């Protein structure tokens, strides 16, 4: 636990929890899930609640268990759990906090101590353990452990209070020989004489634990809100005093928003300032130290460790960062896994695995095939720094290679026909070029590049080329998004004749009925999630003629732009 002189803020939350617990009666009480952002201090709070209950009352038997490890065998979990609980029971009944001092004690040692106490309740607990162990009945053993708070409470105070810290880790303990903990806990939490308080990753517990039917209505969720500005200032000043760092709160107040009210971030920065003996008396110093913290300091180390624990393969880690840094995810908007895979051109299975690992690590939220980034600006700044550092290390080269592959400098057009006369270089009345594009992200830019090649043959002013390019891009995007074409292709034909450029954009998908497209409404489009709806109106405004032609399958859009009077057709001029 953090030393008392280094713990600031959150006193109200601790008091509220302690008051709630101490008001227990023999009526069924609701369990409580203390939810909060990662590193917001929920563990510290529940440890203090335990301390409060241990030291300042004798009506309720308190327990605390911190899930730290993933146990591959249920028996190891049972022994660890029982050891912790029985030790706390003995310490509480003997009113001897020294028994809780953090020295390692084995299960067999605690069994020996228990049996020597001639406590019939404890004696019976160990006898039951032995019987289940010899059977062997692993599920019985796990149930015995989970019900231990109730049994121990019933032989002492009558009421128990069980605190489970980092409960989300039970979701990673999947045992072949026994029902999983997440399915067994609801029964243990249903007893009216023992109430539970737990912490853990909100999105995971909501998705996989609290969503169980057996948990319905049995848990009260208490949101650990972000600390207020005043409280953040108090904590910051307290930490500066503690680490002997000089500060001037009026001068640096404006920089404290950076910490998002999360004590860990403040502690990291102030501790570093203390080590370097730097006074935190100006915003610039805080900004510099913050940059250092998110690039190479404790904050970066913390997030790097989390990512390294999730992804041993550096390429997988890089893809994870790409996912987290993708704008919709980064800005906390929901995005489907399939769309995510499409946008990043990654294999869907790989994206599923990576996002699941990120969710388990608490670095991403997700449910029902949708994900979104966590709302923590400091983590966002860490991602930005990481991304920048990778870009400078070589991704720029990769991207240049990628761009060259997608936009080859060779001609991307097929010359289709030239009005019955010889092809290239000779005078003709009409010339057409064809282009087939796969419907993948941003290939409308390939169409734009092709247009530029075609437009070289005509003296279109730059402004007109810009308009045609935008119309073409919109037409391609319309095809991508609305055709649902099975062949996944867009067929584009550019035709130049004496007076105009015609562009046909065709797909083999669902027929598009332009009469059903509403006139764009600025407010409605802005409020809609995809912010789409301008395409057709824009195309009409940019081109001279726009027609949707009847075709048996799909949609065929013809767009025409007449040459300006001063422009000429270079092919015609020879």
């Amino acid at each position, binding site marked *: 636990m953090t030393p008392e002189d280094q713990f600031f803020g959150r006193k109200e939350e601790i008091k509220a929890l302690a008051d709630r617990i101490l008001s227990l009666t023999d009526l069924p009480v609701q369990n409580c899930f203390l939810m909060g952002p990662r590193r917001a201090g929920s563990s510290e709070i529940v440890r203090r609640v335990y301390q409060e209950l241990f030291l300042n009352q004798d009506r309720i038997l308190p327990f605390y268990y911190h899930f730290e490890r993933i146990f591959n065998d249920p028996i190891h979990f049972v022994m660890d759990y029982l050891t912790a609980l029985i030790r706390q029971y003995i310490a509480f009944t003997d009113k001897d906090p020294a028994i809780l001092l953090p020295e390692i004690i084995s299960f067999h040692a605690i069994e020996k101590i228990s049996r020597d106490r001639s406590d019939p309740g404890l004696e019976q607990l160990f006898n039951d353990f032995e019987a289940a162990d010899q059977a062997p009945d692993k599920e019985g053993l796990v149930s015995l452990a989970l019900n231990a708070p109730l049994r121990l409470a019933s032989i002492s105070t009558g009421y128990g209070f069980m605190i489970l810290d980092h409960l989300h880790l039970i979701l990673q303990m999947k045992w072949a020989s026994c029902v999983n903990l997440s399915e067994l806990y609801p029964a243990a939490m249903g007893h009216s004489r023992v109430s539970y308080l737990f912490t853990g990753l909100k999105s995971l517990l909501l998705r996989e634990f609290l969503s169980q039917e057996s948990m319905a209505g049995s848990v009260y969720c208490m949101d650990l809100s972000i600390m207020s500005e005043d409280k953040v200032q108090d904590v910051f000043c307290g930490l500066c005093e503690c680490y002997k760092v000089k500060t001037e709160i009026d001068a640096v107040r404006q920089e404290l*928003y950076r910490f998002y009210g999360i004590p860990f971030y403040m502690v990291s920065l102030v501790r570093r300032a203390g080590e370097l003996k730097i006074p935190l008396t100006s915003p610039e110093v805080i900004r510099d130290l913050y940059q250092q913290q998110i690039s190479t300091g404790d904050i970066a180390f913390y997030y790097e460790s989390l990512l390294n624990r999730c992804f041993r393969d550096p390429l997988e880690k890089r893809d994870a960062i790409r996912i987290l840094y*993708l704008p919709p995810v980064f*800005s906390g908007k929901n995005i489907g896994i399939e769309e995510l895979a499409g946008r990043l051109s990654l294999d869907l299975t790989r994206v599923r695995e990576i996002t699941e690992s990120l969710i388990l690590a608490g670095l991403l939220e997700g449910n029902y095939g949708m994900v979104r980034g966590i709302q923590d600006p400091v983590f966002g700044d860490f991602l930005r720094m990481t991304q920048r550092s990778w870009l400078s290390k070589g991704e720029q080269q990769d991207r240049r290679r990628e761009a060259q592959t997608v936009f080859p400098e060779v001609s991307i057009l097929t010359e289709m026909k030239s009005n019955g006369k010889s092809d290239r270089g000779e005078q003709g009345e009409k010339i057409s070029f064809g282009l087939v594009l796969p419907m993948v992200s941003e290939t409308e830019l390939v169409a734009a590049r092709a247009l530029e090649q075609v437009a070289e043959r005509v003296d279109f002013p730059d*402004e007109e080329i810009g*308009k045609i390019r*935008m119309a073409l891009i919109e037409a391609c995007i319309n095809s991508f998004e609305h055709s649902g074409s099975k062949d996944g292709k867009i067929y584009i034909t550019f035709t130049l004749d004496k007076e105009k450029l015609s562009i046909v954009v065709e797909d083999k998908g669902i027929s598009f009925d332009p009469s059903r497209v509403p006139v764009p409404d600025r407010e409605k489009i*802005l409020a809609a999630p*995809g912010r789409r709806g*301008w395409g057709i109106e824009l195309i009409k405004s940019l081109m001279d003629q726009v027609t949707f032609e009847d075709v048996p399958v799909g949609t065929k859009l013809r767009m025409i732009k007449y040459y300006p009077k001063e422009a000429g057709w270079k092919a015609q001029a020879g």
Partner: protein
Amino acid sequence: MGSFQVDIKFADDVAIFKTSGYINDLGGERIEKECEDVLREGYRKVIINLKDSPIINSIGISILIGITDRINKADGNLFFTNVTNSNAKVFDFMGLSKYAPIFQTVEDAVRHVSGKA
């Protein structure tokens, strides 16, 4: 593809963005995110230099409209510079330039913002 970038510089109380690359939904959202950040840092005057972003699609412009609304609601102002003529027409058509004036160069916009124009 995917090489969209936003570089940000600050001149007194003005945040000056310089974008590079195609402004589609991804590019637009990246600008939106950066704008949110500078607003949170207290900047209320934002200039977006589009010199290296000649290609913008309608979704990108819709996002820019959203950004304009966001900045205006925070009592701030957004300005664009180095917009191509064709894009300027589209900005007009979609109602963006009504709320976010366009200047030829960043220097022009800065002069206007600082009241020296």
